């Protein structure tokens, strides 16, 4: 056997080591960026989902103040899980609008009575059409929108405890 062949395994391992070490050093984010980041909100106008709150249109999102836009549904279990975090965000001063996806006024009212209502406006998106235009495929999802109606960030899935400070920071930076 040739002598260099004996060094081949070590050489291959060295290559692996370098690749992995480089991979480990480079900080990486596991957030999948939405195609809608940096783009303005599509124009829409949704009717009120419940009597106590007004409906939502794209014009409500360009008043100069950054906001959260939460897409939820009363039939969605992770939405129950994120309810306390949304209330916490609201108490910290965040303005939160919502789009209720494929829902009925009675169910939404029940849901909000039971788990709390952090929303100032709720639009009813009975056919999910606005949700799809936003590039969102599921509930819950939360968008950070700056005062000019540009989407800054998309959070997919329920908001966990650790996401609350991140979202508050993004709202501050969007001012």
């Amino acid at each position: 056997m040739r002598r260099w062949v004996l060094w081949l395994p070590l050489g291959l391992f060295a290559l692996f080591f370098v690749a992995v070490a480089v991979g480990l050093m480079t900080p990486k984010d596991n957030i999948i960026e939405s195609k809608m980041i940096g783009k303005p909100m599509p124009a829409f106008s949704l009717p009120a989902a419940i009597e106590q709150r007004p409906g939502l249109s794209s014009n409500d999102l360009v008043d100069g103040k950054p906001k959260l836009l939460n897409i939820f549904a009363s039939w969605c279990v992770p939405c129950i899980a994120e309810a306390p975090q949304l209330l916490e965000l609201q108490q910290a001063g965040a303005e939160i609008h919502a789009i209720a996806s494929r829902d009925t006024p009675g169910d939404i009212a029940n849901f909000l009575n039971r788990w709390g209502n952090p929303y100032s406006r709720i639009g009813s998106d009975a056919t999910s059409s606005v949700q799809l235009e936003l590039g969102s495929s599921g509930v819950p999802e939360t968008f950070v929108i700056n005062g000019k109606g540009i989407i800054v960030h998309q959070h997919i899935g329920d908001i966990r405890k650790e996401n609350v400070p991140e979202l508050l920071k993004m709202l501050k930076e969007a001012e």
Partner: protein
Amino acid sequence: MIAEAGLIALWLAAGLALLQFALGAVGVRFGREDYYAAIRPVAVAQGALVAISFLLLIVLFLRSDMSVALVVKNSASVKPLLYKFAGTWGNHEGSMLLWVTVMGMAGACIALFERSLKVKTLVTTLAAQAFISLGFYAFLLVSSNPFERMFPVPPDGQGLNPLLQDPGLAFHPPTLYFGYVGLSVAFSFAVGAMITSDVGPAFARAMRPWVLGAWIFLTLGITAGSYWAYYELGWGGWWFWDPVENASLMPWLAATALLHSVTVLATRDGLRAWTVMLAVVAFSMSMIGTFLVRSGILTSVHAFAVDPERGSFILALLAIYIGGAMALFALRVGTVKEGTRFELVSREGALVANNLLLSAILGIVFVGTLYPLVVEALTNEKLSVGPPYFNLASGPVALILVAIMAVGPLLRWRRDSAKTLLNRISIPIVITAGALFLLVLLTTSMSVLSLLGMALAAGIAVASLAPLWKRNLRRTPLHTYGMVIAHFGIAVALVGMASESSFTEERLVAAKPGDEITLNKWKLKFEAIEPVAGPNWTALEARMTVQYENGNITEIAPQNRMFASAQTQTSEAALLTRWNGQLYVVLGDGDAEGRWQIRTWWKPFVTLIWYGGILVALGGTLALVGRLRRKYLQRKQKEYAELVL
């Protein structure tokens, strides 16, 4: 005080590991044979102490001692007892402690029971084993102390990742760990044999039970893991080519190759350097697998154990152990004399082909698993290598491999003639051809790969039994039965895989209570949706009755579970097994009109995949028992002969 006692036991065990390494290294380097005798008791004591440390951690979990940080993070007092128990190793620190515990106990077993190896090689092996353990002790004591206390003491723990709250978890990771660590013993043997230039049949026979044992655990672990992912993830698939799955497959592939090459070395004294290299590679793959899982460097559906800082620590250990062993190989293997030569058409020839093909598959899986990482390092672009690559690249190689598997056991050692071989395998060839003809005639939906797989499986099933043909079944050694059963198990699993990929039927419907769904010969009736509660979760449960053709009506109940302590949702699929397949039902989200997404699959013969895996492991077990018994009897005989003389 239990936590402190555990930590003290761990420190003492680490100290003994250092002593064990020093005794071996100094003894072998300076020829101090008086040190040799001391190393055995030290290894035994080290194993006992680390085992005590692990037992104490289990006690802390069972008592829900919330003053210990690890218990707080990974357990809760409302958790069922089984999951408190399993929670011990369902986390980073606990699983690393389990790892060194198994290593320490394996070292103790070698010290107690290994008598046939040259003393110098044995001492070097124990020193190498201690050296590997030391790295993990350092890891535990420096950066992952499992016994750390927490102040102030919280009222209750945070629970365990709900995906992991499953009977499968209780036994899946430890099973894999036994496999990984068993390979560490093979690694230590290889290092010991390289240093003392003692690579030969005696070394192979000493190493073989460990390789076999590790391989059995890996086989069981992968089989169980595949079934766990199948029913717990609710996606209806049994293998996702996910990095974490690949991390357990790669050591298995290397161990399978090693298992076969070690037989050549033990029986015919061939493939010396290659076997040593494989022993090094097999454990390297285990360590790399653990690293990939723990470091979070690859994104994966299994990413519940992620920590980049610890990743760096494990990477450093990898560099020392794997790099060191491979450098040792390059420097020392030249001193190992070439083994016996053999003809191409021979048992050895088939085993070499087996090794090359297994290595090729290992290479394919390794490249596919790491490719996204390399691409991201070079171009900063994220991509994922999916099943299409893995199936397409490894499938054909695997089929050639199983074809050779059918032929190999029918060949003689050293030299055989191609003509008599053709004679012996004529029946399996006819069966394969016949099956292929029938399948092409009767089915329409099969891909080329599954078609060939199914046809080959029929031939292999017969060929794998052929070694028993015309033999005295009572005098056939146990390990031959083991091989026959393991090879037959591969054929069984292959049928399951081909059937699952070709004949699965799927329906996705939005149904209201009262609706009926038909799927193949199944009639499903969606009766009601109800909330139910478990010890630490609540769920929506769909109650359904199902009927196959005109058979009995059975109730099933797929669930959507919410876990209170971790606020996570999991889907509990409902499975109904018949002899000819499995019905798989998943409850999805509901909509405003009261309709629920219900996903149903009918998977003919899918269970054969896991029955095959169990058969393979059973075959391995028989071989192991047979080998150990033979070894024991030979020793007794030798002792008796000495006594008589």
